[in-house]
């Protein structure tokens, strides 16, 4: 802009500056409203949460005296928080490889030259966009003690209300609902692989399995990284399913507690906002460190 200004004469220059000022003002005007919303409800709460985490804070607001790091000590030494962490790690380690494997298989299946590709793609994707409450409720019905699943396999285990099975029941449920989204990312990845590579493999008479193992799977590396990071972090933030299968209580025997449910219950069942905020900060750091470790060990996701 300044280069343009220097080449034109003086009177024009001042009107150019007026236009520039006008553009600046309109720019702030247009961007101002979204910036205000983000500042007020995203940036400010971040600081406010840290502030609350160092205070005694109940449902009626701030209570006398500062807690210092008492809330943090309480969270870090709370066996329920430890159980919640253990549950979510088990869940994440279980669900991520399963949904990646299923998502990739579906993508490979859909990527074949078949009739009704779009129909099948939609059919696999639909559970991903249906409401988590409805999906979880349906799963509760089908996996309850006299539900369809138990009638078929001849058992009567209430899968979602048994301490030893609830994590794995949620793993199964969310593999069903998220693999459709993962399929879409893998499809985009598959379509980015050039046909030349496959033609070369066909000329060498390479078998289907060998082509997949030596060519397709390694070339899907960007998709693997992307899905791993995004859905790994997503799995760590699980809440709805844990809340719904336990009537919001995290039971039986704390088996359906997740860290986010722990934060929710500290705030809205125990009304201890200070501890809830501290747990929020602690868990934010946990996820941040895990993401960092993931990046360093698995590598940086390349631009897909």
């Amino acid at each position: 802009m300044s280069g343009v200004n220097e080449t034109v004469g003086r009177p024009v220059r001042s009107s150019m500056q007026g236009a520039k000022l006008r553009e600046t003002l309109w720019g702030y005007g247009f961007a101002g409203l979204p910036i205000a919303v983000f500042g007020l409800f995203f940036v400010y709460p971040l600081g406010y949460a840290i502030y609350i985490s160092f205070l005694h804070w109940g449902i009626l607001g701030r209570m006398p005296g500062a807690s210092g790091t008492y809330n943090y000590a309480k969270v870090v030494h709370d066996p329920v928080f430890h159980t919640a962490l253990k549950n979510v790690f088990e869940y994440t380690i279980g669900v991520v490889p399963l949904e990646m494997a299923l998502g990739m298989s579906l993508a490979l299946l859909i990527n074949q030259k078949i009739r009704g590709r779009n129909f099948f793609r939609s059919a696999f994707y639909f559970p991903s966009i249906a409401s988590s409450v409805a999906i979880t409720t349906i799963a509760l019905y089908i996996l309850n003690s006299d539900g369809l699943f138990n009638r078929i396999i001849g058992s009567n285990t209430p899968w979602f209300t048994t301490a030893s099975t609830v994590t794995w029941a949620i793993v199964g449920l969310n593999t069903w609902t998220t693999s459709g989204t993962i399929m879409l990312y893998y499809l985009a990845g598959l379509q980015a692989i050039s046909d030349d590579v496959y033609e070369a493999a066909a000329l060498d008479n390479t078998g289907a399995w060998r082509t997949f193992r030596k060519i397709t799977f390694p070339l899907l590396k960007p998709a693997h990284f992307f899905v791993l990071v995004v859905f790994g972090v997503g799995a760590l933030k699980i809440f709805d399913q844990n809340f719904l299968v336990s009537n919001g209580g995290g039971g039986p025997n704390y088996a359906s507690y997740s860290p986010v449910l722990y934060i929710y219950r500290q705030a809205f069942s125990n009304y201890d906002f200070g501890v809830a905020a501290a747990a929020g900060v602690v868990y934010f750091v946990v996820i941040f460190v895990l993401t960092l470790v993931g990046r360093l060990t698995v590598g940086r996701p390349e631009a897909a």
Partner: protein
Amino acid sequence: MTIQTTAAAARPYVPGRARADVARKALLYALIVAVSLLFFVPFIWTLATSFKTIPDSVNVRLIPHPWTTSAWHAIWSQYDFKLYIKNSLFLAVVITCANIVIAGLGGYAFARLKFPGREVLFLLVLGTLMVPDQLRFIPVFVMLTNWHLIGNFTGYILINLVTATNLFFMRQYFLTIPKDFEEAAKLDGAGYFKTFWRVMLPLALPAISALVILQFQGTWNDFVWPLILFGQGNTAHYTVQLGLASLHFTYSTLWPEICAGSIIAILPILAIFLAFQRYFVSGVVSAGVKG
């Protein structure tokens, strides 16, 4: 498919190979149909149960016997789903409209207008994507409590007026529109707002359609924020998702009613999905791969 036939016709001398191809295709279709069925059995089963009686709801038989619509009647009047649908629709429509205008204004400013600090502010907008919800529960609840905005729709609408994802999405689309349109508008004497409202926003219709569909779905399906902001106390502000969760918590064996409620919670999204599925698919992939 035409490619397939010509390829088969091109090698008529290898019947063995053609037969293997047919077998492979048949296996492929069998597999894909089986998986689709597996994906859809739960929905079909739920739909069937919504027309069953309670004793019949535990039978392993798809067709209801006797057939009844009493669960649907109960859901509609006795369990207040009429009100919950109204609430959910109201929130979804208001929030989607607000997002079109505000994300549009912001997206246009960040794509086209030059003002000091633009890049820093844009980074700040993208940075909000990294602030996790679980860290916002407590401060946002406290703020809205202090402003007396808990237990009514205003607080929920306020915190959802615009999302960074929508703003980013609109900005990316505005960047693809040639500058000629704005220059023509400027020559006709249109100001900044008129250029935005009359020229740029209509040109961004494909992006707006995708935004409408994804935002409507997001608000309709939202559970945790309605739970925090109006899930406690009276049910006057319950959304469909809250109503369904509460129905299940209160009457855990009322399966026909619970299944009818689940269908209601899913149906609008299924309808939108069937009508506009290309937006869903392209929205997800562009958000992930290009973002």
